[in-house]
């Protein structure tokens, strides 16, 4: 078990964005989190990464309760994420963006950086080669020197994945990685996520592109109005009447409509 979410609740004022959601993710699997807009999927990500505190419930990562840790500590423990609305560092080059991702796996301080001690130079070299390797991994090798804001949309999404991978996560959270991508780009993304899985990284995926989700995920949980309404394999989910109702509305409703 890599991640276990137990009865997670989050209230914003009177609104329950997430209520009583529990699920658990096995090591090495690709786990999908789907649901209509506003179902609480991104809120769930923000709870796991401690961007928001939980109202109640627990998040357990590798047998350890990570509630209330700072977001940077959570990244250090091995959970890293991408953002639905891309949040790269726009003025930095692609390479620098990935180098920032290595931050929590390196440790040079002010003095060793300024006086370029032997260990600092070695570390800097390691950070650079790691960035190069990851840019190649996501297919952006030729764009290392381009500033992030000048990359195409699909490239920015892949750069975000490279930056997140730079922190050596055990669990990678991808928030709508295929949003705004065309079919070829989505196919590439499919390959990329499979490659990430084969590196031993567990993936938690929020996605609206249903063909991609069904093809990619080992298991899926469905949220609607902040509650989990189903969990299972892609085939089970596709045939679950409650899920169909959440997405398409129930048959009776249609008759009255």
């Amino acid at each position, binding site marked *: 078990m890599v991640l276990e979410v137990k009865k997670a609740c989050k209230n914003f004022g009177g609104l329950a964005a997430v209520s009583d959601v529990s699920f658990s993710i096995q090591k090495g699997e690709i786990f999908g989190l789907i649901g209509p807009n506003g179902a609480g999927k991104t809120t769930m990500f923000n709870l796991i*990464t401690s*961007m928001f505190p939980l109202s109640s419930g627990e998040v357990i990562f590798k047998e350890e309760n990570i509630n209330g840790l*700072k*977001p*940077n500590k959570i*990244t*250090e423990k091995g959970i*890293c*994420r991408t*953002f639905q609305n891309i*949040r*790269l*560092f*726009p*003025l*930095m080059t692609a390479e*620098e963006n990935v*180098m*920032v*991702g290595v*931050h*929590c*796996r*390196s440790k*040079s*301080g*002010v003095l060793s*950086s*300024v006086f*370029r001690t032997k260990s*600092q130079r070695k*570390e*800097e070299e390691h*950070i650079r080669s790691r960035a190069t390797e990851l840019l190649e991994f996501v297919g952006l090798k030729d764009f290392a*020197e381009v500033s992030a804001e000048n990359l195409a949309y699909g490239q920015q999404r892949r750069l975000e994945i490279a*930056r*997140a991978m730079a*922190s050596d996560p055990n669990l990678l959270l991808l928030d709508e990685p295929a949003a705004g991508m065309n079919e070829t780009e989505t196919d590439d993304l499919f390959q990329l996520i499979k490659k990430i899985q084969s590196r031993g990284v567990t993936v938690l995926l929020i996605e609206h592109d249903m063909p991609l989700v069904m093809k990619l995920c080992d298991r899926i949980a469905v949220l609607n109005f902040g509650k989990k309404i189903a969990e299972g394999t892609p085939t089970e989910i596709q045939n679950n009447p409650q899920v169909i109702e959440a997405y398409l509305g129930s048959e009776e409703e249609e008759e009255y409509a």
Partner: protein
Amino acid sequence: MLAEFINPYYLQIGCFVLINIILALSVFVPLSTGQLSLASAGFMGLGAYTSALLTIHFELPIIVGVIAGTLIAGLFGILIGVPTLRLQGVYLAIVTLGFGEVIRVVFVNWESLTKGSVGISGIPHIGREILKTFKEFGFNPQSLGLQNNQFIFLSIFFLLLVITVFLVWFFRRQSRSRVGRAYAAINLDEKAAESMGINITYYKVLAFTQGALLAGFAGSLYAHVLAYISPADFSYHRAVDILVFTIFGGSEVIWGPIFGAIFLTFLPEVLRFISEYRYMIYGLMIIILMAVRPQGLIDVTIINWIKSKVSKRGVKHGSRSEKSM
């Protein structure tokens, strides 16, 4: 020969330029993590008063006073930096401006220690101390054809030059390292930086404290270069002056505040011949620049342009100028 070219008045302006560069850096460093601080004048005053009082009352060597002044300012930097972490932009600017005023009012009213608005005079002078030390070793400036006060100002100037060059080198190297990347990441997107594993609390307080240390250091040097300080030296006007160096020069690259400090310190001196109109021109220039180039005069584009010009002049360049495109 040499003596005719050395005018103590010009050297003194040179010294102020160098001190102002350090002050401009004290705004630039916190700003490189997105923290707009107007506390530099306050930290400067803390450094100046600490060093002045220690060297006068306890007859400590100037270097001990300067180190103590710098550290006291740094300590206050941590004390102010931690509670203001959540504040951004103008809110932080207002709080830090308030802090500077509090410091100034304390200087004015704690008369038993600071002599109030009269100020402290008779502060040990760096140049004279250097001259005294040299004379003890049997050196006489006359052997170089210099008068005593020429030697005094020349020695201060070179001392400050070495210190300033070191500081610029220090912060340039820092900005190209893991720490510099963390600063830049926080500046560009704090939330994303935090999710990428950067301890934003640590780096923001670090940058703020570095700014305080720089201002305190510049203030201590200021006290021992002028030999006289009063609360008016560290008022709101000083805070704005320091801020303008960085805003005018540009806050994207370290050369911005350096250029701003040099240019804006020289400008009133160069314009001295039109006496009272010079601050009008000074103000007008700032207004025009901010309207035309809100990012400041020196930005990344200009630096790259200069780099490409320089490398084109070199015999073989190749990749360098292409990279900067």
